[in-house]
């Protein structure tokens, strides 16, 4: 097996953990230090241009919160204790806002990520297997076109057609409000609301997985063990998925975690388009209201979650590819 087919294999275990801890610390430090770099009276300036009115006491509290030299370590401990401050725009503790929005984003992003990986992967395997055929050329062309359409565009078009014109799907929300529903009915309702944002994200992320799988599968198919498998008379379907695809899966899994860092942008945009009550909408509303504690918390906490997921994927990779260490 030539080694440079999979050039981006992870390094030693401790190295990865250290890298991720450093990344998490860096992110936390940026979120701690940035507001402190702002000139003097930014609290007044910031809330002055928003529609939130602060009382005298709240304003001094906020100023104290952002200007006092509390030090990085106490800040870190507060972050870990989920003591993220109080939102004056929503009149709720920031952590409560965050954890009520998080499940929806996880549901949307998780489902979209898994479905688009599976679709892209099977598409890539099938296309590479029929390398040079009309089927493959069509798939490659279609995927290239799809790769060129950003989520903002597909999202708005899908919304305009299916929610506003045809009215097949709801244009906003994650479930129908103020109704008592049985478990199964509720599930259907949530799925109905999820469909449009989910479809938008899947359309945007299938091509990346497709190209990754196809390119590595084309390399794998040429390996000698595939020839051996064919010579032994193993059925093609079994060669494709049991022998070849297992090797083509490796780069897809390595990128599975990293891809999330890129997907975040799309998720924010899609949630805003479909008014889906996840972190993206929370962040958008916070930006509109200039609600600094909420912006800071969403930015920091979601980055840390992404880091944790990427780190977790490194371990999955080790299970799939026993050749490492």
């Amino acid at each position, binding site marked *: 097996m030539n080694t440079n087919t999979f050039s981006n294999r992870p390094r030693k275990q401790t190295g990865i953990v250290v890298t991720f801890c450093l990344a998490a610390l860096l992110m936390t430090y940026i979120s701690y230090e940035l507001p402190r770099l702002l000139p003097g009276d930014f609290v007044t300036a910031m809330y002055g241009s928003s529609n939130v009115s602060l009382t005298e006491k709240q304003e001094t509290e906020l100023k104290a919160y952002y200007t006092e030299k509390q030090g990085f370590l106490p800040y870190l401990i507060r972050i870990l204790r989920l003591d993220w401050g109080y939102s004056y725009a929503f009149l709720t503790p920031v952590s409560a806002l965050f954890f009520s929005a998080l499940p929806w984003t996880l549901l949307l992003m998780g489902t979209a990520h898994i479905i688009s990986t599976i679709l892209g992967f099977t598409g890539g395997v099938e296309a590479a297997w029929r390398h040079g055929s009309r089927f493959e050329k069509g798939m490659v062309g279609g995927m290239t076109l799809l790769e060129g359409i950003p989520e903002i565009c597909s999202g708005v078009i899908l919304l305009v057609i299916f929610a506003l014109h045809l009215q097949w799907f709801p244009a906003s929300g994650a479930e129908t409000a103020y109704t008592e529903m049985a478990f199964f009915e509720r599930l259907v309702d949530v799925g109905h609301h999820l469909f449009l944002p989910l479809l938008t994200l899947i359309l945007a992320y299938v091509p990346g997985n497709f190209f990754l799988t196809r390119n590595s599968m084309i390399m794998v198919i040429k390996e000698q063990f595939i020839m051996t498998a064919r010579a032994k008379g193993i059925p093609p379907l079994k060669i494709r998925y049991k022998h070849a695809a297992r090797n083509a899966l490796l780069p897809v899994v390595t990128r599975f975690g990293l891809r999330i860092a890129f997907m975040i942008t799309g998720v924010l945009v899609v949630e805003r388009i479909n008014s889906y009550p996840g972190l993206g909408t929370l962040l958008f509303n916070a930006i509109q209201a200039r609600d*600094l504690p909420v912006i800071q918390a969403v*930015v920091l906490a979601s980055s840390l979650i992404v880091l944790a997921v990427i780190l977790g994927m490194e371990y999955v990779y080790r299970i799939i590819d026993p050749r490492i260490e």
Partner: protein
Amino acid sequence: MHINLRHYLFHNPLFVSGLLLALIFGAVGLFGPLIAPYDPWDMSFSPISSPSAAHILGVNDGGQDIFSELLFAVRNTMVFGLLSGMAALVMGVLAGAAAGWFGGIIDSLLMRFADILLAIPAVMILILAAALFRPSPATLAIILSGLMWPTIAKAIRAQTLSLKNSLHIKAARQMGGGNFYILIRHLLPELYPLYLIGFTAKARMAMFMEASLAFLGLFDPSRKSLGMMISYSIKFYYMDIWWNWIFPPIICLSCLIMTATFLAISLERALDPRLRETLSGRKA
């Protein structure tokens, strides 16, 4: 090899269509302000009027000519993408070549830093910076490129490592060429295909990022941009404005991103030697 490459590229429909689109957008970007029939900030027309001979795409809710707005918006998005892609390329090439050539502690430090940056979602840092400081678009473009360089650096580093032991580099060393001389004179010119791929890929990502940030309302509201036009126009979805107000910025943005995608994918196919023989149908 380079002549074959040019031949291959100009017979590749993907590359040719990407190039054509790029030329069109280049012209729009350069001459947009001259073509624009009105000042895009002029609010003196009757709000939300349908397309007419005077206003090809009609007038928006603020009484501004949509076609003029569109021309300025395309230009802003493009400038952001090109600037950010260029800066990311410079940083990536410098870091990658240094890491690959010098090796040792420089290599491990740079690559560790690159790994850290890759794992952090770029959009989050941009949002934080944009919400706190309201920086200029150029500043945001540079911050973004500071987060995007690692992928370019990794590709450059890998290629530098493999070139490092090639005969002509060894010969240059034997003749007493210094590090700097070899890097500038031999190594960097030879890596040029990677620059094209890296630059188009990063410019694409930056334009996408700019549109998303504008859509989320993180830029100065008076700055014309495609994302902001989309975000304003869908508020009026219930009116008969789909064709003249909602779709034009969407189509322009898709075409812009497609241009970069086509160029990036076709260049990657042409220049990646592993895929090349299989893709062009010739068995080398």
